[in-house]
């Protein structure tokens, strides 16, 4: 069959009139010459037809053979539309290229957004995605994201559910972690829960098994707290212990510092380097080694680009190097206390499982330097499963 109307429009077509001449002879010559002609029609005494702009000159001989001549009535298609544009061709070409680039980038995977992961590191998820073929720069349409999500759920037993949703130039991985209750102890058959440290029992929340302690009891490390139910053991092939046991514990921590410490301070001299990164690719920076600073610290941050509210895979990366100077500082008592308090706050921020009920802080000075001794009263899970 002949070429489609879209092909004619892309190539550019002219609508022409055959003036005088014998239509049968003219169109027969066109057919024999392999020139596709469309929409041949009579209008009054004239015959109109459409032909590719490039083929129009080839028809002159056929028109002459038919005893007539041709006249262009209208020009249509992309080549003629470009000529009629009110702005220069390079601008139109640039707009077309930009539209194509956006369309291409939008249908590829350039950014992987992961949310909801609290136990599985981002790097492991990215590695698993890569094993399933979902890599930066691949086409979104080439992946079956539902199947990839199923495979990843089978691989990570700590996942309750996950979805992978493709967006413009990015995929969004939403994860629901399987977080076991931190104080909840689940045991195998013939296991028991023992105290993992000296404590006073605060509460016993028993799910299965028999509790040997009551709230208020003082236990030592290794004391049994919950044992399997003897009846369940005799009537069933398996028995388990499961309980949530919290207790009050104490712990002492010391933070030390010398009289003289090395202190690094910024001098105020800052140099910035700009680069770009696409998706997860490493940012490309200009040569940054010759920054002129003997000592410096680096800080990197990035700025995303948005178009119509959609984040593009392109990011502006900024590398900021600040000159620093290290000097020996002799601490007085206030400075030492301030420094040690910061260490204490850092330490406490890392205590996730234990809840601090009270603390006694004692600041002292000795031959080697300053010491901050902290006695904590904690509330934490004290149960530990051991096999009999």
């Amino acid at each position, binding site marked *: *069959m002949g070429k489609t109307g879209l092909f004619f429009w892309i190539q550019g077509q002219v609508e022409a009139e055959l003036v005088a001449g014998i239509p*049968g002879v003219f*169109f027969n010559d066109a*057919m024999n010459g*392999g020139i*596709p002609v*469309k929409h*041949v029609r*009579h209008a009054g005494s004239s015959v109109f037809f459409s032909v590719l702009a490039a083929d129009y000159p080839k028809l002159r001989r056929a028109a002459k053979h038919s005893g007539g001549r041709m006249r262009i009535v209208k020009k249509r298609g992309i080549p003629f539309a470009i000529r009629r544009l009110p702005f220069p061709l390079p601008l139109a070409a640039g707009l077309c290229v930009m539209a194509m680039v956006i369309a291409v980038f939008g249908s590829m995977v350039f950014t992987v957004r992961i949310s909801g992961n609290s136990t599985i590191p981002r790097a492991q998820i990215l590695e698993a995605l890569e094993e399933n073929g979902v890599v930066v720069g691949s086409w979104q349409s080439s992946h079956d994201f539902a199947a990839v999500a199923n495979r990843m759920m089978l691989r990570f037993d700590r996942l309750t559910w996950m979805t992978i949703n493709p967006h413009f130039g990015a995929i969004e991985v939403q994860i629901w972690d399987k977080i076991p209750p931190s104080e909840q102890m689940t045991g195998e058959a013939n296991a028991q829960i023992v105290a993992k440290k000296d404590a006073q029992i605060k509460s016993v929340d028993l799910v299965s098994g028999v509790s040997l302690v009551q709230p208020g009891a003082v236990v030592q490390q290794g004391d049994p707290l919950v044992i399997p139910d003897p009846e369940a053991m005799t009537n069933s092939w398996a028995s388990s212990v499961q309980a949530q046991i919290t207790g009050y514990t104490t712990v002492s921590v010391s933070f030390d510092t010398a009289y003289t410490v090395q202190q690094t301070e910024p001098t105020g001299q800052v140099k910035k380097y700009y680069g770009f990164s696409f998706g997860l690719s490493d940012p490309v920076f200009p040569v940054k080694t010759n920054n002129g600073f003997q000592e410096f610290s680096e800080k990197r941050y990035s700025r995303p680009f948005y178009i119509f509210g959609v984040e593009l895979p392109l990011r502006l990366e900024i590398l900021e190097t600040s000159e620093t100077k290290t000097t020996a500082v002799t601490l007085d008592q206030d400075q030492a206390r301030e420094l040690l308090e910061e260490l204490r706050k850092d330490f406490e921020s890392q205590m996730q499982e234990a809840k601090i009920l009270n603390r006694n802080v004692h600041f002292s000075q000795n031959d080697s330097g300053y010491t901050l001794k902290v006695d904590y009263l904690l509330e934490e899970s004290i149960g530990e499963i051991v096999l009999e």
Partner: protein
Amino acid sequence: MKHPPKEYIQDNITRIGYGLDYPLDAVFDIPSVRVVGNGMAIIEGCRGLIDYAAGRITIDLGEYSATIFGSDLVMENLAKGAMNVTGRISSVSFDRRAV
């Protein structure tokens, strides 16, 4: 062994084709004219255009010529081997040509 003439083979295949209700254009390279309603005619295997007037299009089909009569006849696609004609088709006639 003497081979049977080509016409003999073709006649027999034609008979078999008729017997099986099999379209001949599927077996031989025969031009076909398919009229869809009275608004469209699809011609395949045409060799050329003999005549084109306001209410009449005559097409070269080799041994035959087909003439499509009607009004507002438009040749939508005109290419060697295939052609589409739209309009209000009133009749189609076939004439044997002197080849």
